[in-house]
Each structure stands twice: as C-alpha cells, then as structure tokens.
C-alpha cells in the first residue's frame, strides 16, 4: 500500500505534491460562486477556500447544492446543458473559468471520484493507464507499468489485483471498483481530488478501507469530499462546510463544527433534527 517500494522513475513522474508548499496554504479559493440551472438558482453566492494537503468535507441535506458546488471545481458542470456558473474560482491564483483555461487540462489537475464506481469497460490495467495515455504522461511501456503499479499501490488495491491486471475492471467487487476509480484518478497526477459521496454505494467494510485510503492520500493531495454521513465527515476531514438550500451556512475546523457549531441550523442538522 505504501509508495516506498515503487521504482524511482515513477516517483519522479508522479506526485508533484512532494515539493508543493506546506499544508494550510489555500489550494483553491472560491469567491461568490453562483450556479444556475436554466432559470433556477442552485447556489447563492458561496465563498470558501480549500487548503492543500487536507480533507475538506461538504455536508448538508439532499438538494442543498454541495454536489453542484463540487462539480464547479473541475468544471464538470460544463457538460450539463443550460448550467451556468458565475463567480471566481482561483486555483494557484488563476481563475479556472477563464477563457484561457482548457477544461480538459483542468480536469487532469483536478481528479474526481463519483458516487457509483464507474470503471470503464476495459481491463484493470487499461482503466488506470487510460488517463496517462491520453495525456501523454508515460513515454514508454515501463513508465506506464510503473504508473499503473504506483497508482494501484496508493489506492491500496495492488496486492489484490496484481495477478489479474488484464481482468475487466467490472469484475471487481464494489469496494475494489471504487478504489480502482481512485487509482485511476491518481494516475493522471492531479493536485486536487474531488469525491462525490464515494462510499454511498459501498458496505461498511469497503467504506472503512476507502476512509483509510483518504486519510493516506491527504498527505499528498488537496481533497474535497461530499458526504451524507456525518460520522464519515467527522472521521476523515479536517475542515467541514455545511450547506443548506444553496448557501454555505458555516465552515470551520471539523472538530469545532461537530462539537461547537456557531449556527443554529448547523447544530440542528448534525444533531439530526432535520435533513
């Protein structure tokens, strides 16, 4: 599971986070984000920032806009008809909605893991190798092998699949598929990983594995996770943001949010009085 055993070559292609500035510097800074689906406004001016090398959890009742907000961060909302995003999202000081930014390149820097595991109809190896191939990250077969191995190791899946890399990705169990998707996201060397309820389709054992993995990945990436499970938010995140009806109600250190929320609505939600 650890990356210490991986070849040197792969280490150099992967993980630019190793020389990134120390934690707590904001990796992404959002200013007054508004999202519209046609005439309906889904998000009403949200400003927040995401620190590097930390997990930020977005919580809130269904339909509160947390997934929509998450999808702004890698411009996945572009693929939705009549969806419009306003406001500034600065990543390393650059507005990602700027015309000069190619969403395709942006998405290679901001990986995403979805609610339901969605391995491609390809082999395990090709699932991981797909991203590096289309971005030309690997120059040789050995490079690619190394990236695949390293990504699978980081996702904690290597030991389970190393003997059947050519088996179809869909032949894995649900939890394994989700880790495969995480490995796939890691393989393109992202700086940020977005997770949209990554455990909602998994059983408790698989969930625990993914949570361990998230904790491991935190050392290298800026992670934003949307979750319905408050225990999960409390377990894996360092910072938590509570959304309600398209507004950011409260954001702070996870411990503070769960033990001493400033807002009444936050308290009501985390104590289960609504939502």
């Amino acid at each position, binding site marked *: 599971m650890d990356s210490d055993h991986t070849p040197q070559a792969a280490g150099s292609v992967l993980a630019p986070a190793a020389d990134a500035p120390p934690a707590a510097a904001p990796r992404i800074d959002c200013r007054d984000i508004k999202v519209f689906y046609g005439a309906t406004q889904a998000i009403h001016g949200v400003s927040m920032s995401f620190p590097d090398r930390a997990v930020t959890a977005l919580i809130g009742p269904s339909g509160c806009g947390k997934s929509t907000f998450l999808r702004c961060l*890698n411009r*996945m909302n572009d*693929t939705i*008809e009549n969806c419009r995003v306003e406001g500034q999202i600065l990543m390393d000081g650059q507005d990602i909605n700027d015309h000069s930014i190619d969403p*395709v*390149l*942006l*998405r*290679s*820097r901001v*990986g*995403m893991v*979805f*609610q*339901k595991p*969605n*391995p*491609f*109809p*390809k082999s395990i190896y090709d699932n991981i190798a*797909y*991203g590096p191939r*289309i*971005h030309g990250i690997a120059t040789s077969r050995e490079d690619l092998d190394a990236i695949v191995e390293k990504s699978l190791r980081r996702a904690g899946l290597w030991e389970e699949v190393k003997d059947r890399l050519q088996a179809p990705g*869909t032949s894995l169990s649900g939890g394994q598929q989700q880790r495969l*998707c995480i490995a*796939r*996201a890691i393989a*393109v060397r992202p700086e940020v990983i*977005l997770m949209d309820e990554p455990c909602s389709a998994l059983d408790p054992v698989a969930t625990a594995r993914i949570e361990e993995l998230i904790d491991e990945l935190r050392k290298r990436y800026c992670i934003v996770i949307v979750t319905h499970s408050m225990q999960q938010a409390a377990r894996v995140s360092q910072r938590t943001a509570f959304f309600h009806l398209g507004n950011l109600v409260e954001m702070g250190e996870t411990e503070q949010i769960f033990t001493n929320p400033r807002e009444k609505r936050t308290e009501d939600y985390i104590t289960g009085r609504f939502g």
Partner: protein
Amino acid sequence: MLQQLGHLPMGWLLIALIAVFASVAFFVGRIGAERILLSGAPALHSRPNYHGYFVAMWAIIPAVLVALVYAIGAEPFARGQLTSELPPAFDLLSAPELQTYLDSVSLAARSSDYAGTDLVFTAVTNRYLEIIGGLNIGALALMGVGAVLGLLFARRRLAASFRARSLVERGMEGVLFLCAVVAIATTAGIVISLLYESIQFFSVIPIWEFLFGTRWNAQTEAEFGALPLFFGTFMIALIAMFVAAPIGLFSAIYLSEYAGPKARAWIKPILEILAGIPTVVYGFFALLVVAPAVRSLALWINETLINIGLASEPLLAAQPTSALAAGLVMGIMVIPFVSSLSDDVINAVPQTLRDGAYALGATKSETVRNVVVPAALPGIIAALLLAVSRAIGETMIVVMAAGKSARISMDPTSDLTTITVQIVSLMTGETGFDDPKTLSAFALGLVLFAVTLLFNVIALRVVQKYREKYD
C-alpha cells in the same frame, strides 16, 4: 326460401349475435348475483359484475366455436356437396378446371344478377345458394342453442360463495394465450410449408448441387446451382453495409453525444423517415439515378485507365444495372436501422462512465472513442447484424436495380442477382407446385429464412449479454 337465406351477410350477423348474446348474458349474470344479495346472503365472493362476465363468457364460448367452424368449414362443405350432386357431364373437367368453375359459381352467388346467361350455370349457382342457405340457418340456430345452454349452465352455478372472479381471470388468460398461439402457429405453418416444399425439391435436385453448384439457370435449363445467388446476395449486402455501418453509426454518435436537444428533435425524425420510404421508391431511385451514375463513372474509369496506359481493355463491366447501384441504395435504406438502434444503445451507456472519462481530462471524442463506443459495442454489433439480415431479405431494390444474371464476379459494376430476385422471378408468371422450378423458390426461401434467423438470433444473444452487464 333456402336460396334467399344464402344471401345472408353471415359475417356481420355472427358478430352482432355474439355481441347480443354477450350483453344479455352479462346482465343475466349480474342481476342474478344482485338477487342473491337481496335474498339475504351476507356477501358475495365476487362483485356482481364478475358474475356477469362469467355468464357472458359461457354464453360466448359455444357461439364463437360455432362461428369459427362455420367460417372455416362452410365454403368447403358446400363445394363438396355441390360437386357430388353435379351431373355426370362435369366429370370431364380436370381438377383445376372444376376448381375454377366452382370459384366462378361462388363469386356469382355473391352478386344477385347472375341469372339468364347460362342455364346450367344458373341452376348450379341456385343449388349452391341453397346449400349455403341451409348452412347459414343451421349455424345461426346452433349458435343460439349453444349460447342459451351455456348461459343457463353458467347461471345455475352462481351462488354467494361462487368464485366468479378467479374463473374470469382464467378466461382472460386463455384469450391472451390463444392470441399468442395464433402468432406462433402461423410462423410454424410457414416454416413447415417451406420445409415440406424444400424437401420435395431436394428429392429432385440433390442438396449439395443446390448449395454448391455454380450454374443457375432455373427458367430455361433447369440448372439449380444457387452459389451465384448466395454470392450476389452477400456482395450486395456487403456493399450496403459499407455504406450503412459508418454513416449509421456516426450519425447515431452525433445524435446521442453531440447534438443539442433542438438538432436532435429535427434530425432523428428525419432519419426515421428514411425507414418509412417504400422500398419500391428506393428501387426506382436506384434504377433511374444511381445505376446510370455508377455506369458512367465505371465507363470514365475504364477510359481513363486505357488513356493513361494502365489497362489495354475495359476493366469494369459498367453494366446498366449493377451490384454497386443496388448496394449503395440499399445501404441508404438500412441507415436508419443502424442509427436508431445504435442511438438507443449509446444512450443506454450510463452517464457516470462519460463523467468518469471527462473527470480524467478526456476530450469529447476521446470519451466517445475509448469509453462510450466500447461500452455500447455489443449493442452496436447487434444493430449491424439486424441491418445485415434486413439487407439480405430486401427484395424490391435488387429486383429493380441489381440485374438478373447469376454469376460470380468481384466486379461491383457488373450485374448480379440475389436470392430474393430469383424467388420473385420464379414465382411470377406460370407456376405449378409439381415443377422443380417453383419448388426451388421454396428452397431459396428456406435458405434466406435460415440465414436471417441466424443473424437475428446472434443479435438478440449479443444484446442480452450486454443488458446483463449494466442493469
């Protein structure tokens, strides 16, 4: 009197009577059930309406049976009876001649003014009408008796605890089952008759000679080597698929992945109109527009090749009807089959798969090429197979534009013939069931049926496998 009854419009009468019996019986049953309630029974097992349906069911069944027997048996019985009563002079007629005579009798019987032309004919027709009239009145009486008996029988069973509802449900199931049986039985009948006639044909012409013989000359020489026909069919279907597979598939991809809702709302119906154009229209389009164009192109190629010294004589046959012309137009015809089915399977690919690719930074075309199409591939293959089986069975276009010479030639500008074209030409004109010429059409039909069945079965299998994967 009986003769007058022969003019009864039995079809309408039977249907009207069945309707009358059904409604009367329904009310008898319903009123009966209500009366049971009034007489102090605590509660009925089934609601009064179900008692009504039950009694109606029993009244209709005998009536429908009588009507069916009448519809199938009346005419043959009347003819048999009439034939046995005909004067001995009619023995001179051969079987087909007698058949024709009887046909004209029954045709005349339907109009009222046949009298006066030919005394014998008039007498025979009058007698025919008498027989039919007797059958008519008999059928109506039998129907009435049956309906009343059924009604009485059912009425007597009504009681508070009677489970009319379950019996009606079973009756409904029976009706639905019968409808399914009719469809299956028809198919089976067609297949059996194909098989039967083919076996007769193969007793004259050995099956190997038919399947692998290379000389086909059914009309004049009685040579039945069908290989050139298979080749022609295959060649034209292949050309058609060269047109339909890329155009159909790419337009499906455009429609499902790129087109906005507005473009889609326009393009999809237009593509489907292609499927609604009668094939005969495609046929004359092929004959009058495409075939001459193919010919002049082929002539131009011949001339150019000779002029620049690459060939010393014409390379292409450049005939007025050609496999290429028929294949091209047939390809246009099957585009909607490919595009519409592929569009469905591409739309069935879960959105999460596309999201997964986009989230990795794949462009739209990379996503389509590497993720969407591979995921939809089984369905796309099935669509192509169905299109192939459609192309193989297509008749009108090839009859008009492919030509009639049975030959094996790789030159697409020469005229080829197909299985379907030969069936048409064998079946038009004078035919007789004892002639191997006619029988060979059945053998060809059997081959055609077997091949398209095979393609359809494979296509369905592939689609099923695909479904298991994503649900």
